[in-house]
């Protein structure tokens, strides 16, 4: 649906977006993740035809964003960051204006606006003046606007920024629901959001793509080692020696406390030693009280990737 090829945007001599390429498949929810100023908004602005790229191409549902921009714009719903709305208009009035602007035929307009109002749960404020609405409602009015012409693709720039936890939950649920019918590209710097919503993640830093995969794959890939933490009853000394002799184990840390033993077993990357560990302990008359694989969260990956980059740069400087 969206195809980005070596897209770059340069401001003076700084690349805000530095030759990135990616694709978004139909029906997918793709998360664009990155720290502030990484180039997320710029990428989205290029895709929505708000500004052109310095070089490279991007096509949205087959239309080039530069040459066929009107057709692109007909096929996307865009929610800009901070959701700018006209404060003096009423909610319904605004949606009707936007529907007209997006060339929704007169007959469909009313039912379509009604549907969007219902879907975004803004029925109770539909006759209110936008300027008097809370941030959460404004956000949902913005979302209703992106949906009003039933676009195939939704591009959402930080859809949950500035909302309270309940509102964040509601907006996320709504996005998830929308993901069933629409292709969604969303940007955020909130990690649990990506884990919850997105089928695939692109981590972008300083205008470059630093990682692109599913959230779980990304976690697996980034695991520096394979760490297992154990709590075992039994002969600690004996078990420690036995564990060390398992194939693939790099390091065993043993700590005795009261009657129990804590172990930390580090195995080589990509090896699953959990079953071997189990049989080994049982053979040595140990009882496993707890076994847990230390998992790495997206947060850690994000931190690792974005700061890694930073260190490298410092070295080159």
């Amino acid at each position, binding site marked *: 649906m969206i195809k980005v090829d070596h897209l770059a945007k340069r401001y003076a001599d700084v690349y805000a977006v530095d030759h990135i390429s990616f694709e978004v498949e139909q029906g997918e929810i793709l998360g664009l993740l990155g720290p502030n100023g990484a180039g997320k908004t710029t990428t989205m*602005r290029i895709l929505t*035809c*708000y*500004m052109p790229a310095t070089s490279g191409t991007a096509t949205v549902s087959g239309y080039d964003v530069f040459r066929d921009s009107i057709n692109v714009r007909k096929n996307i719903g865009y929610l*800009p960051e*901070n959701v*700018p709305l006209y404060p003096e208009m009423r909610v319904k009035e605004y949606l009707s204006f936007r529907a007209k*602007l997006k*060339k929704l035929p007169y007959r469909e307009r009313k039912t379509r606006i009604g549907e969007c109002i219902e879907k975004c749960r803004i029925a109770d404020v539909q006759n209110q003046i936008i300027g008097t609405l809370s941030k959460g409602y404004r956000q949902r009015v913005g979302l209703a606007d992106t949906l009003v012409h039933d676009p195939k693709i939704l591009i959402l720039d930080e859809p949950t920024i500035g909302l309270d936890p309940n509102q964040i939950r509601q907006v996320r649920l709504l996005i998830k629901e929308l993901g069933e019918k629409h292709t969604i590209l969303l940007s955020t710097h909130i990690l649990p959001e990506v884990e919850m919503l997105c089928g695939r993640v692109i981590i972008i830093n300083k205008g470059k793509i630093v990682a692109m995969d599913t959230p779980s794959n990304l976690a697996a890939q980034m695991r520096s080692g394979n760490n297992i933490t154990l709590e075992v009853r039994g002969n600690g000394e004996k078990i420690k020696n036995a564990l060390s002799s398992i194939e693939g184990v790099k390091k065993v840390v043993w700590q005795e406390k009261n009657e129990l033993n804590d172990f930390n077993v580090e195995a080589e990357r990509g090896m699953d030693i959990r079953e071997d560990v189990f049989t080994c302990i049982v053979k040595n008359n140990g009882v496993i009280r707890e076994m847990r694989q230390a998992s790495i969260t997206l947060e850690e990956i994000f931190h690792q990737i974005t700061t890694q980059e930073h260190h490298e740069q410092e070295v080159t400087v």
Partner: protein
Amino acid sequence: MTSVGTIFQREISSYFLSPIAYVVVAVFTVFSGYFFSVMLGITQESTLRYSLAYTQFILSILTPVITMRLLAEENKTGTIEPLMTAPVTDFDVVFGKFLAAWALYNIMIAPTALYIIFLAWVGSPDYGAIIASYIGLILMGGLFISIGLLVSAVTKNQIVAAVIGIVALLILLVIGLASYGNEGWFYSVLRYIGTYDHWDTFTKGIVDTRDVVYYVSFTALLIFIVVRIVESRRWR
């Protein structure tokens, strides 16, 4: 072209949802009424000619107030982003806004029709001259609006847009006045650029093609420039 209508409709309703429309109409009515009564008292002639000469001065101050928010506000609040990512062309947006402001301008000068009724009651005015004056007034409005729109397009601040717009219009008025009655190529260039001389012809009851061309082409040129400015975010 349907988008022009949509933009026009929103802008017009937005004018009347904010105090701007009421303020400019009220201020204009007060001042034009004052000049009308004073000039009528002095000249004792049943004509709008003398009072309209002063009207240009009020219009130079009020029209930028009409146009100040058109693009400056969109730039400031960021509503330009959803607007420009909707399937509309830059021209649709600019022209829709221009027409809305022009319509408000015409609403603003509409109450002066009462003076004609009054003149008809107390004397016998030359209707030809009055009709010509109104044609001139409306054409001049188009030019003033497009100047205001241009200023509004290049700034994010409404007050700045209004002030620069007023200054620009006053300069156009002053260079026309300064060249009045002077000879030589320099003054004739000033006279041509300035609005006063063209406007004066209309108030005399003459609809000269030269003046019509001056207003229409100047307005079209400015609208064209505004479209380019709005477009310029794409290559800046």
